[in-house]
């Protein structure tokens, strides 16, 4: 066991896997000589060489397209998109190609790529360095989408993603890179894709969240309980697609009240799908409407600091929602 930052857990896991399996390569903008703009891949090019750690041109569509081609020819590429905000030019490659190759070839071909990319706001990143557009991918059959925030989860899920035979979008919260610290097993542990984790048990309200919002939710839950309020159960989804419906259903059957917290725009965001599932399956056990907290109907995370703070859910706004929900 070692205590690592989120970014260290990701870095170390890549090193591990690239040592274990020659076919694993890393490609993206500034990942080689620079070691990544966040330093996630620092030192990798020194160990594995420029054939396996590739600095690509600034061309997202080509990065993904090349990765797809490489993956269909025996390699296991980790394609880094420098910021999730930049992924848009690669959409056609991801949704029309990567997601459909197995289906389209009736299993003759598959596409074992991992698309790693920092996402999320709260770092004063403004419109093009703060986006949370995971909902675009979570609705796509043929893709897997994971968003771990705990360093041990990140390590375990990255291993699963790299070893997965199909495309996995691996979302790394940029604010969490150096803010989240945790114990990480050194033994090469694997976290299966599609399993959520109950990080805190409770009996009155269930919070379902992921990413940095999971952190804010935990803080709100603890503050509420310390203030003598309701007992809150908190679930870290970890995997968005596939969604661990069993875990969230069991929890809501127990508590009867659900609050889904995500920083992406509330309308049409991933949390809406979770809410719809619970509304249908957990209906007889619900003691209150299912509530969601998400970003506002604003086209992007603002550059202005106070406006950015107003955009993102935080411990206070989550706490207020918990009060309303537990009093319902």
């Amino acid at each position, binding site marked *: 066991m070692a205590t690592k930052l989120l970014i260290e857990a990701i870095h170390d896991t890549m090193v591990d896997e690239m040592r274990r399996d020659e076919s694993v390569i890393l490609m993206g903008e500034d990942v080689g000589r620079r070691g990544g703009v966040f330093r996630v891949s620092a030192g990798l090019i020194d160990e594995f060489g420029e054939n396996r750690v590739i600095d690509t041109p600034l061309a997202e569509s080509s990065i993904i397209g090349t990765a797809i081609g490489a993956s269909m020819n025996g390699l296991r590429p980790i394609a880094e998109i420098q910021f999730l905000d930049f992924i848009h030019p690669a959409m056609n490659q991801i949704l029309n190609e990567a997601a459909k190759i197995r289906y389209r070839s009736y299993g003759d071909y598959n596409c074992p790529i991992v698309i790693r990319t920092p996402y999320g706001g709260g770092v004063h990143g403004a419109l093009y360095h703060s986006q949370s557009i995971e909902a675009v991918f979570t609705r796509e059959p043929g893709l897997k989408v994971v968003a771990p925030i705990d360093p041990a989860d990140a390590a375990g899920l990255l291993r699963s993603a790299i070893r997965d035979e199909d495309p996995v979008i691996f979302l790394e919260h940029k604010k969490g890179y150096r803010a989240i610290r945790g114990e990480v097993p050194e033994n090469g542990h694997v976290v299966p894709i599609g399993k959520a984790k109950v990080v805190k048990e409770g009996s009155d309200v269930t919070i379902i969240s992921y990413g940095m919002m999971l952190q804010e939710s935990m803080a709100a839950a603890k503050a509420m309980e310390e203030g003598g309020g309701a007992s809150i159960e908190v679930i870290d989804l970890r995997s968005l697609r596939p969604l661990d419906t069993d875990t969230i259903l069991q929890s809501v059957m127990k508590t*009867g009240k659900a609050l889904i917290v995500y920083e992406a725009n509330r309308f049409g965001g991933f949390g809406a799908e979770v809410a719809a599932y619970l509304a249908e399956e957990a209906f*007889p*056990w*619900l*003691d*209150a409407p299912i509530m969601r907290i998400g970003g506002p109907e604003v086209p992007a995370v603002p550059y202005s600091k106070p406006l950015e703070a107003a955009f993102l859910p935080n411990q206070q706004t989550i706490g207020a929602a918990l009060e309303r929900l537990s*009093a*319902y």
Partner: protein
Amino acid sequence: MSTAKTGTHIQLPKLGESVTEGTVGAWLKQVGDHVDRYDALVEITTDKVNAEVPSPVAGVIVEIMAAEGETLPVGAELCVIDEGNGAAASAAEPVASAPAEPAAEPQPAEMAPPQPTERASRPTGENGAMELLRTRSSPAVRRIAEEHGVEISQIRGSGIGGRVTKSDILNYVDQRRAEPAVVPAEAPVAPMPYPEPATAPTTVSSPQPEERPTAAGQVEVYQGDKVVTLTAKQRQIAEHMVRSERTAPHVTTWMEVDMSRVVEARQRSKERFAADEGFDLTYLSYVIKGVVQALRQHPNVNAVWDETRVIQRKAINIGVAVGLEDGLIVPVIRNADEKSIAGIARAMRDLTTRARQNRLTVDDVQGGTFTVNNPGTFGTVLSTPIIVQPQSAILSTEAIIKRPVVIDDSIAIRPMMNLSLSIDHRALDGLAAARFLGEVKRWLERFDPETSLY
């Protein structure tokens, strides 16, 4: 047991956290019986709690799969109820303006099907939403309410808009299931010379769980106070009292009766009777015989008010109040007009014995047309009894006390007994009451001590 019958299958519910099975007690309904929603179907005993299983639907029982005495696991099939077209909406539906569930929507298997004939107008707007919250609360609360046969609208809610929350109803259900406060029975084993004892000048109806209790905790408890938990039965009795008083305007009339002839008659017969029958002859048997005769002359008293009409009953079934540890029960002497005094005495003996042994059946406590109560054994001289619904009158016999009375302008000592008659002043009036009561008095005062008991 599997069944080919279609309808709503009623399963043995989970009666407690760690309860995994239950033993079937008495079936309170039989195949062919119509049941209203929430009617008690069958008694279940477990090692933690005894309970009645309420019906989640209205309809007719078409099959019973669980036999009395069988021990079954939670979830086992008990019976099947055919709801027909759902037209059997209970006439005694509770007060709350619960809007009907939309008939067209498919329901999950565990929920009761919608009742189309109950369609109330759907509340709209802000008030409508609050109304829905208060009466229908939430799916979790409705589910728990159905499981336990509880009326949501009668529980005080702590949620928004005053709605009942899940913890409100769970607390309520837990309280309801708390062990009843058992007072050790001091039921006299040795026969008494006075009529059968009753504990209070009021009466109770059949074991229909028309649960409409209010939430506990509306009265402040001070230090040193003793909080007595009520059993479901006690609450039912209380509910019946309230309902009876609330619907029927009660008027009570009294008459004094000279019981000398009856006393003499009993004096002559009691030893022989006790030797032959094995129990003591009481005055109540004579009084009931007199009541029956009077009811034959005054069928308007053997009747019940029904809003736009009065139904005069053909059968004369006399309810007799019996005191038990946790309340009153009123078993019924059926067709009392076919019985002699001894027959009445035997019937009473059987009913009171079985009542004390908790062996009364549903038939024993249903169908009464007139009730007789007997507080006189405790020395009361006047009562204002409450009518047992659905009847129109109730008679209490008071203590027999020797008093000086005037007869032919001389003073004589006579054993005098007051009779207290309460009537439903919708169905009857003072004149009818006086006539009836006078008939009973006359019959008792003219009783020929030579009359055979048989």
